[in-house]
C-alpha cells in the first residue's frame, strides 16, 4: 500500500484523512504544515512534522503527498504548497471517491479530489490540483483547469471551460460553452451565461425576507399538504 503524507491540519486535512483511510488504496502516515503553524505534535494519532524538513523524515521516493487545503485566497495557498511539494520531489496523489460517478478514460491530474456523488461525464478534462466537492456535475467535452475548487452541487455544463484558480460556488451553474476566466469567484447559486472577466467576483441577489413569521405563512407557501 502506498503511504502518503497530508499537508494541512485544518478540517480539510481531517476530511481527506478520513477519505483516504476509508476509501482509497493509500495509507496516511503523517501530517505536515509549516513549522510556525504547528500547534500540536499529533493529529488523529499521527505525527505532525514541519514542512521545511518533511522530505528528510518521509523521503519522496517512499512517500506520496496530498495537499489538503481548500480555496483560501482563491486557491493560491494550495497552489503554492502544491508547487513546493513538487519541487521537493513528491508525487502528489489524487482521491476519487468510490461513490463518485466517473467513466473509464477519465483525464485528471495530480492532487485532485473528487468527492461522493460527483459526476464527471465522458470526454472531460480536469487539470492538476482541482477539488470537486460532493454532487458537482462536470458536463461532457468540458475543461476544468488547474487549482480550481468546485463546491457542492456546482454544475459545469457541456463544452464549458473553467480556467485556473477559480472558485465555483455551491449550486451555481456554468452554462454551455461559457468560459470562466482565471481566478474568478462565482458565488453560491449564481448562473453564469456568458464569459467572465479575469478575477471577477460574481454574486447573486439576496433572498427576500417576507414580513410575516413562518408560522403565519406556512399554509400559503406549501400548497400541498405534506
Amino acid at each position, binding site marked *: 500500500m502506498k503511504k502518503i503524507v497530508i499537508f494541512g491540519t*485544518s*478540517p*480539510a486535512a481531517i476530511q481527506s484523512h478520513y477519505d483516504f483511510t476509508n476509501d482509497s488504496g493509500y495509507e496516511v502516515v503523517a501530517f505536515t504544515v509549516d513549522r510556525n503553524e504547528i500547534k500540536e505534535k499529533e493529529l488523529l494519532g499521527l505525527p505532525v512534522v514541519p514542512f521545511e524538513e518533511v522530505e528528510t523524515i518521509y523521503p519522496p521516493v517512499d512517500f506520496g503527498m496530498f495537499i489538503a487545503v*481548500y*480555496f*483560501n*485566497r*482563491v486557491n*493560491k495557498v494550495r497552489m503554492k504548497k502544491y508547487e513546493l511539494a513538487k519541487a521537493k520531489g513528491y508525487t502528489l496523489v489524487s482521491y476519487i471517491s468510490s461513490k463518485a*460517478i466517473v*467513466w*473509464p478514460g477519465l483525464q485528471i491530474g495530480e492532487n485532485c479530489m473528487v468527492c461522493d*456523488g460527483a*459526476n464527471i*461525464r*465522458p*470526454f472531460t478534462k480536469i487539470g492538476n490540483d482541482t477539488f470537486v466537492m460532493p*454532487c458537482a*456535475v462536470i*458536463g*461532457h*467535452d468540458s475543461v476544468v483547469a488547474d487549482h480550481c475548487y468546485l463546491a457542492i*452541487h456546482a*454544475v459545469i*455544463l*457541456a*463544452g464549458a471551460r473553467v480556467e485556473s484558480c477559480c*472558485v465555483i460556488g455551491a*449550486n*451555481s*451553474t456554468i*452554462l454551455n460553452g461559457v468560459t470562466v476566466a482565471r*481566478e*474568478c*469567484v*462565482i*458565488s453560491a*447559486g*449564481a*448562473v*453564469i*451565461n456568458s464569459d467572465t*472577466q*479575469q*478575477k*471577477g*467576483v*460574481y*454574486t*447573486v*441577489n439576496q433572498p427576500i425576507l417576507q414580513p410575516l413569521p413562518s408560522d403565519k405563512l406556512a399554509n400559503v407557501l406549501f*400548497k*400541498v399538504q*405534506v
Partner: protein
Amino acid sequence: MEKIVLFGTSPGAKVAHFTLSHDPSYEVVAFTVDRAYIEEEKFCGLPVVPFEEVTTLYPPGEYKMLVAIAASGMNKMRARKYAEAKEKGYTLITYIHPTAIVASDLVIGDNCMISEGVICRPFLTIGNDVFIMPGATLGHDTLIKDHCFIGNRAVVMGAVIMEPFCFIGPNTTIMEDLTLGRECLIGGGVVIQESTQEKEVYKANPPIKLPLPSDKLAKIIFRKRV
C-alpha cells in the same frame, strides 16, 4: 445483446454511444443522419448511414434505435426524428443508467434517456422521448409528458404536470403541485413557484459583478480559514 443504431452525430450522440458502449446489454452498430447532413463516413469508428435508407441496411426487425438529439429547436427536432423512426418500424429503446435511483413503479415510454445519478421517486410517470440529464431529481406523483428535456441537477418536486416539449435548464427548481405549459423554456437556475403558460420563457437574474477583483475580496468572503 441488443443491436442499436443511433440517430445523430452531434456531441449528444457521441455521449450516448459512449454510455451504451459501457453497458454489456447493448452494442451500437452504426449512426444514422439525413443524407444531407452526412459529413464523414465514420463516427466514433462506426459507419454513418443515410436515414433515408437505414431500414435496408439495418432492418427494424433486427436492430433497435435511439434518437440521440439533445434539445435543439425546443425538442422538436428529436420529436420529428422519433416519429419518423417509429414510422419506419423501429423499436426505440429507453436507457436507464445503473447509477440512477429509480422507484420500482416507474412508468416510462420509449426513446428516453435517464442519465447517471438521476433520482425518480415513486408514482412518477414519464412519457415518450424524454431526456433527463445527470443528477436531476423528479418528485412523486409527477407527470412528465412527451419530448421534454430536463437539465443537469434540475429538481422537479411532487405533483407537477409538465406538458410536452418543455426544456428545463440545469439547476432549476420546479416547486410542487403546478403545471408547466407546453414548450416552456425554464433557464438554468430559475425557481418556478407558479404554473406557467404555453411557450413562456424564464431566465435567471444575471449575476452581479462586484467592483473588486477576487484576490482583494477573498479574505472577506471566506470568513473562516478552512
